[in-house]
């Protein structure tokens, strides 16, 4: 199975986003590198707005992800509530 990945700038906002991703995707691997955090996962990885809002304690628009995003790999599916990555095999 192919790995999808997402990398975020290592900052205070990303910390909550990463926590949310870990909670919603328990199989994901989180790799800390200088100034960045890379998250990899076999199959499908999903970022849920609701979980991020819960961690941050405020409203969070899924498109705010763009502010801290460094790179990603996989086909993107985005709507108001989530962003997910997957490969077709």
């Amino acid at each position: 199975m192919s790995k999808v990945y997402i990398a975020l700038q290592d900052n205070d906002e990303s910390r909550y986003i990463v926590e949310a991703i870990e909670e919603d995707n328990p199989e994901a691997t989180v790799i800390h590198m200088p100034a960045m955090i890379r998250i990899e996962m076999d199959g499908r990885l999903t970022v849920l707005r609701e979980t991020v809002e819960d961690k941050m304690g405020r409203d969070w628009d899924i498109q705010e992800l763009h502010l801290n995003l460094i790179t990603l790999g996989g086909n993107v599916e985005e709507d108001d509530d989530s962003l997910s990555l997957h490969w077709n095999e």
Partner: protein
Amino acid sequence: MAKKLNIKDKYRLLTRDLDWEFSYVDRKDAFPFEEFEGIKITDWSKWEDPFRLTMDSYWKYQAEKEKKLYAIFDAFSQNNGHLNVSDPRYVNALKLFLTGVSPLEYQAYQGFAHVGRQFGGVGARVACQMQAIDELRHVQTQIHAMSHYNKFFDGFQDYSHMHDRVWYLSVPKSFFNDARAAGPFEFMVAIGFSFEYVLTNLLFVPFMSGAAHNGDMATVTFGFSAQSDEARHMTLGLEVIKFLLEQHEDNVPIVQKWIDKWFWRGTRLLTIVAMMMDYMLPNKVMSWKEAWEVYFEEAGGSLFKDLARYGIKMPKYAETIEKEKEHVSHQAWWIFYTHGHAAGFHTWIPSDEELDWLSEKYPDTFDKYYRPRWELAKEMEAKGERFYTKALPQLCTTCQIPMGFTEMDDPTQVCYRDSVYNGDRYHFCSDGCKDIFDDEPEKYVQSWLPVHQIFQGNCGGPGVENVLSDFYRMNLGEDNMDMKGSPDEKRWKQWKGVA
């Protein structure tokens, strides 16, 4: 109060609804470049933009990115951030970045502005226009970030002039010129897909992480800020490919040919990044080989498995490319070290710790083929005979890199290929570059090859020094030569209070 529109509806209204039916102009006259490449588009409305970013959100988020970025630039400059870099040698990677990479951002802006006008589909046009604005932002933020270094280090003063003339900078310049001189669909496969989706990751992710690891707050910040746009560019690149392949089966062989060409062109271009990672970052994050495995082999492998359902195969020469990761950074830094008098930045022999690191990271090749060269260079330098080559290198007609790469199955043998076209013989560094020439010789015979131009008397002269100082506008004795004894090194020692 009116209900807030959801992303999908907003995207439809603010993007798709911007198009209109043409009543008095033939669409073929309005989009004259859409057919000559042989690509068949039957229905532009099938275009899907996964991010569905609309212009109002675009400006909102970009403004926020810029505010964050410039706050950091201010802090960096107010706090003399240049004094916090790990080692003054590091700054030379930035000189190469400003002269070799930043002008490509400007070329990308020009390219995307062009295709953003020429595509018949409104979704593609809007996405390309956003990317054009992004690329303009990237070149501007890079110039701003590096203007601080220009106050304290040599080699930053004339990057734009140098990009247009200096021998090794013709490598990145001609790469983008080639893409921009192609049709709009080839440009998108070249830059939007091959370059953005797979190759820029190698520059903007591990190298920028390396910048952070070397104390360069300004560069890591512009790098990651640019890369936050790249994530959107990558999805655009992937969407273009899927769209072309789904539109018509006749598009498949054309797209495959462009993928083969541009992955090869891209890996050649990235040789510069390979050497920046392995030789120019004093504090190491990962080796070029490791970065290549993560971002090219693993990420690219998943991508091509995904595209296999359309009949797309891994790029031609993928096997050669896999072997090259063990060699190219070493071969490239050796070229620059031996031509260090003609480079607009400083070169050096890696320290003993760095040589050990390279031995560890490249157990199959470094000790066998490359370490002995550096040991010899050390001996010569110790005797006061630091080596600079006297000759001008032969260049590959396609990638324009000096012919210093070897056969991958025999790394002691330099690789030479050639083709005869209209009675003239042209030289190439590889099968990949030869194939690209043979497919479009009438394009590549026009290459502006810097060494040929020098010999033809088109770059001033008569001596190499005159070319360097007058035509390239390098400050000789300041911008070029070894790091040891350079004005950069002297100033650094003064700032740090060491003898």
